[in-house]
């Protein structure tokens, strides 16, 4: 949990998008803590396995808690931590491979539960840590180390996916603007419910697409990202559906559901309705 630890033996490549995401997360955590007057150690970062997950070791300044577990299981770990301790602010950080390939099964259930956790997904369209294989967001036909003759399957549209399974807050971000991204992440943390901030975070080593993202006027390359239009109503699910199915990738808040209780709120409500029996009382049921 500091880049200065001499025993820690991982570094991002120069230019890696994850640097910007880390910075953004630091902004978001700091602002979140000072706004709510809560200590940094009341935050828990649950990290996936990948270059991206190493973020948990690299946060500068005051330290949040962290959990760097096994590949693909950020959400269930976060689920247990959050439902055990609803007072904690639980944040997931993971890559496109970790979250959308091996970990895909865990996303829809949390959306259905509206678990109050914020996920920051670093999408570089590739498996970085294992050195450049294709990921679910790699485009059809792309050549990677594991698709030497071109990828044979279509890419998943993550934003559309999140929307269809009912994620209650969806934002799309870009790693090169840490301040803006920090705001999106903070909004995700503030949102009561399951939030995903899906970040385009290029991998300079295996999939350097900065130019496609930002565009290059000189070379006549149009950017493939655009800002969510001001007039977009983030509470309008159908408008969001259109936005995420546009030809280019929107950056900004895509959708926010209103009035959906979180799982911990529903549980709290249940506690009000149901009589709790002590272990002693439970045991008496069996006594004769």
């Amino acid at each position: 949990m500091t880049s200065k630890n001499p025993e820690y033996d991982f570094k991002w490549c120069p230019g890696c998008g994850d640097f910007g995401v880390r910075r953004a997360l630091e902004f978001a955590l700091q602002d979140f803590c000072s706004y709510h007057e809560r200590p940094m150690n009341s935050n828990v970062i649950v990290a996936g396995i990948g270059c991206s997950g190493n973020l948990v070791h690299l946060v500068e300044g005051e330290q949040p808690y962290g959990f760097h577990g096994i590949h693909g299981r950020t959400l269930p770990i976060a689920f247990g931590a959050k439902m055990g301790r609803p007072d904690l602010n639980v944040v997931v950080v993971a890559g496109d491979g970790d979250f959308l390939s091996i970990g895909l099964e865990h996303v829809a259930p949390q959306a259905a539960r509206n678990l109050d956790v914020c996920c920051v997904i670093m999408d570089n369209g590739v498996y970085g840590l294992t050195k450049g294989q294709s990921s679910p967001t790699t485009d059809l036909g792309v050549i990677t180390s594991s698709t030497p003759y071109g990828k044979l399957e279509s890419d998943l549209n993550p934003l559309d996916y999140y929307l269809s399974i009912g994620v209650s807050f969806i934002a799309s971000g870009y790693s090169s603007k840490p301040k803006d991204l920090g705001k999106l992440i903070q909004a995700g943390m503030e949102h009561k419910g399951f939030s995903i901030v899906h970040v385009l975070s290029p991998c300079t080593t295996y999939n350097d697409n900065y130019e496609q993202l930002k565009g290059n006027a000189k070379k006549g390359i149009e950017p493939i990202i655009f800002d969510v239009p001001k007039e977009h109503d983030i509470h309008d699910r159908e408008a969001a559906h259109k936005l995420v199915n546009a030809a280019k990738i929107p950056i900004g808040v895509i959708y926010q559901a209103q009035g959906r209780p979180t799982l911990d709120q529903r549980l709290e409500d249940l506690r009000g309705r149901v009589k709790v029996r002590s272990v002693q009382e439970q045991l008496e049921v069996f006594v004769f």
Partner: protein
Amino acid sequence: MAKRQDFVVRFAGEGGQGVVTASEALARIAADVGYHALTFSTFPSQILGGPTWTQARISTTPVLSPGDSVDVLVALNEEAYETHKEDLSEDGVVIYDSSFTPNSSGRMFGMPFDDLAKQAGDIRTANMVMMGALANLVGMPVKFLQDFIVNRYLSRGQAIVDANMKAIAFGVERAASTTFQIGELEPPIKPNYKQAMIRGNDAISIGALAAGLDVYVGYPISPATPILIYMERNLIGSGKFAYQSSSEIESIAAIVGAGYAGKKAMTATAGPGFTLMGEGIGLAWMAEIPCVIVNVQRGGPATGLPTKTEQSDLMTALTPAHGDQLIPIIAPGTVEECYYGGALAINWAERYQGPVVLLSEHSLAERVQNIPKPDLSQIVPEVRATYQGTNGYQRYDGYELSPMPVPGKPGAYVANGSEHDAMGDTTHLPSRHIQMTTRRFSKLKLLEENVYERENTDAPIAVMPWGGSKGPAMEAYERLKAQGTNLAWYYSMRINPLPPKLLEELRKKELVLVPELNYLGQFASFLRSHGVNAQAITQYTGLPFRPKDLVNRIKDAASAASRKAVSV
């Protein structure tokens, strides 16, 4: 003729004919009047109908096995009769439903259960017709039955009570008109302590709750589902959480997350789910997170035999994941031990800060038994050592257990499934891997407790069952003892780490015979790897041992060993 000490009644029919209720009612009635009772059932895997049977064993002293054979078979249809008749004891009696006529004769008589119930005024009293007949056959005073009815049904109205009374009378009458008797049962010696009538799975649940369980996450699977259902219903207070997950992989990761966050957390599953949890259990071992995994074993491998009993998950439970690890295991052998084992598992997890496996099995899970009322005061919930300082703490420092920081308090670190340094950052330094490996294994020492059963310890050959085979093995042992066979007895529900003194004793034995329900002889193999000359007595039928089979097999194995010893 001496009076009987016990008898076994088996009810066999179609699912949905009240077969399960019948044996549980019989057990309950018997226990109410002071007998010891224990049920055993196997279900078909289909939902409604299908050949189903369950039995109750009633005894004047506590017994722990379903017994050898059937004294009274209540057969509700022909198939049931055909399937079970060979399990009848020599003087066993069959009561069959008059809807069919058995193609042989002997000690048997028919009764129109449903018709008699209808005559009694309520078709649902067919059970009590059987009960009346049974009471007569075994010489159990009818008054006990009548008291039971009054207690149970009075609140629902006199009409129901009357119908049941009539049904009992019909049953008694019909049985009395035969000349059969299976030998009068000794009167009960009513225990002078409070009792509970409870199923193994419920006992585990209450044990875990007594030790302070906070969080339960589980996915349905036979025969562990009742624990999920118990928790969903009861683990609901403030700071508590019980939930059905979307898969076992989610279950294990969720309880690891909860354990990390400072909670006492548990899941329960059976073999297929347990295997899926391997990676998560390895993570808990590596990152040093307390949590409990209950594996209610069923027949394996793969989807296996979901409704049968087996003890074949031991090897997998010891090393459920890649890499060096040896997961602490507690295997209860009785319904009572399900309670204490459930509590101990929670305590162990907190004490050594890692995953603990509770290995139960189908036959215990579904067994209803009267046991001394579990003593809540005997369970001292252990409180995990947590970091209380103000900062700069290194969570993974040193070669031994250290206090665990709790999120929300000072001591922020990274719980890490990769090899790590003292603050939890990933590192590949050889010295760290040595330190952390030593540290993880050293903590097992904290669980070494010299608590175990021993008897006749001078004998060179010992019998040492584990888990649910304890009951039949104990019964076999008692019979062999009565026959004058010189055998030692050892038993421990602590499977890993084994009580060190027990291991010492076992190593000195010429031979340790291990009755266990699997093909490989898994526990015997584990003991051999610890330098014990252990030999398994195996069975892999999906059913528990019968004491009489064990008597023979233990005798044979012991005398083969003695012969060998002599001929050397």
